[in-house]
């Protein structure tokens, strides 16, 4: 379960302190697919980054698997992220010098898992996202949609309890976008993994079980849907 209590955050710029998130409270149940919806500058990406432990909030608590990640040191946070959190980037962020399989394996490398186990697990996930035969190719040899599928496989390899995706379809065409969302939904059903997806597209949000709408840093709506 993911719980956010009284979370506030602000940025400092030349004009002074700019509040980005104000008193956010939310709870996301296990195995849910959640959309963080909002226009540009609404604070949805900041909220996602805070929940993923990539930033420290000014105040508030973020509890994942019962642990307040706000209090963690950088190293402890890295360890926690490794075992509990997966991340999908808008622009995939695959390492160009590694093969597809090696990219998927990467989080397990940091966990010290043996090469044989890593390989088996990576190949299985690549099969699940439909890229089993492309395991030995390099990212530059794949299309954008395929690269995002690799990124999804990579986020799942540590079997995290929650996966954060920042505009995962933002760089893709409509057809590929649908394909990616379908894969995410399928994995959600199969693995019971929680997905928190940032999007500004209502069409994407409509396909999620929970839609959290942010406006000017305030959570204005929490809609639960039957998908």
């Amino acid at each position, binding site marked *: 379960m993911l719980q956010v209590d009284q979370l506030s955050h602000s940025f400092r710029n030349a004009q002074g302190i700019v509040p980005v998130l104000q008193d956010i409270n939310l709870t996301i149940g296990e195995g849910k697919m959640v959309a963080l919806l909002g226009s540009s500058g609404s604070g949805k990406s900041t909220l996602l*980054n805070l929940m*993923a432990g*990539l*930033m420290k909030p000014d105040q508030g608590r973020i509890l994942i698997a019962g642990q307040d990640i706000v209090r963690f040191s*950088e*190293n402890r946070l*890295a*360890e926690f*992220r*490794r*075992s509990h959190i997966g*991340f999908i*980037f808008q622009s995939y*962020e695959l*390492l160009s*010098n*590694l093969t597809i399989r090696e990219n998927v394996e*990467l*989080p397990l*490398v*940091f*966990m*010290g898992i*043996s*090469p044989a186990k890593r390989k088996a697990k990576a190949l299985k996930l690549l099969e699940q996202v439909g890229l089993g035969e492309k395991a030995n190719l390099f990212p530059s040899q794949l299309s954008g949609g395929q690269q995002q599928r690799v990124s999804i496989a*990579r986020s799942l390899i*540590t079997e995290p309890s929650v996966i954060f995706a920042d505009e995962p379809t933002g760089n893709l065409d409509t057809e590929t976008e649908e394909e990616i969302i379908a894969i995410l939904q399928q994995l959600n059903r199969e693995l019971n993994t929680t997905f928190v997806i940032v999007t500004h597209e209502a069409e994407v949000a409509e396909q999620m079980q929970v839609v959290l709408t942010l406006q000017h840093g305030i959570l204005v709506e929490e809609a639960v849907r039957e998908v």
Partner: protein
Amino acid sequence: MRIRDVARMAWGQIIRRKMVTLLCMMGLSIGSAAMIIALSVGQSVQTYSEKTLNDNYKMDEITITPNEGIRTGNGKGGGQTSKFERGALTLEKIQIIQRLPHVVAVAPMLKLDSLEMVLPDGRSTYVEVIGTELQTLGGFGYKYAEGRGAEDGRMAVTSYGAAFGLIDPKVTQKLFEQLNADPYNNELLQQYTEMSSKQDQLVQQRVQFRYEDYADASKTKMSGSVRVSGELTKPSNVDEMSAQGDKKVYLPLDTARALQDELGLQQADGSAAKRLNSALVKVEDKRYVSQVEEQIQKLTLNTQSNLFQEEAMASQLTMYQKAALGIGGFIMLLASLSIVVAMIMSTHQRRKQIGVMKVLGANLWQIRQMFITEAAMLGLMGGLAGVGIAFAALGGVNSLLASQMADRVNGPMTVVIQQSALPLGIVFAVLVGVVSGIYPAISASRTNALTVIKSM
């Protein structure tokens, strides 16, 4: 994170950025080679110099002389020598010295003046006459080419050089007169050279010794005859010319004292009859020389060894070695700077990659580990290349030395790469790599993942 994975990722970066790798390796390899060469040259020069010193100066020998203090009087023995009895070099003291630890041989010596050794046919040459116990010569590495030393009777042993240049004085005088008149006559010079280098058979011959007082011809005296019982071999560490010039005759001590009496060489100080004027001590190893010297000095005797030659050489070598190591160190410093710069550049270029790794769960230490391993690998590669460069450079140096020092008695100096210098050079290069990689590694680990991912 497994060591193999860290190494694989570091290696991936090294082969990916070939130019940076090459530049870093160049500096490190030159620095490492300089270190290896400095250590090897230093050690080889030291070994060669020690061998030369041992051969030329006999580092394991000590010369003992009486401790006569400061003499007063006319210096002809008429002074207050009786006050210095304690410092006399006697056979009793020699016996004590023979029993000292690490002493291999002791040769008591009664050195007479340089005397003219005369053969029955009148031919002669000047030799240094030394009274000693002939059986001790073997302990100092002397070997007999013919005959042997005998203590009974008026016997003598000659050095290799004593058998050369025995010429009739009248012939010599005539030749010198001709040369004075015609100094550039090559034929005469050739004739003299041939006569000087003619070897005679001295063993079993009877020889006499003449002491010539140039101030007063009437004081010129001839000794009784002495039979040559043995001839020593040419020393292996001395060239032919020097060996021919080293003319010595060794006599038993009694015979030497008898010669002193016959030739009027005895000092006016009558008490000197049982005394020796020097002794030579051979020590088991040169490292015991100081220790033995101290013991001998307790017997109120003066000692002299050639250790000071070694000390002088060691200080000079240390200076050269320090200079070479300094140059190597300076090159290493430059190499280190090149690694720091290259890796900082690399960190900058790879900051997005670092950010992604951090998001995927890499902690600070793992990021640092990757960069430090990369730097260590660069160091290792530079060190290995340095070994190759050192071998190539020293191969050239050895060829040069062989051509320049071919005529040396001890042979040309060869710079041998010290086995210990190889790992040292490599380890040093790796260490420089690691130390140089620390700052870039820390800098890389501090990369803000989110900032770099969003900004690129």
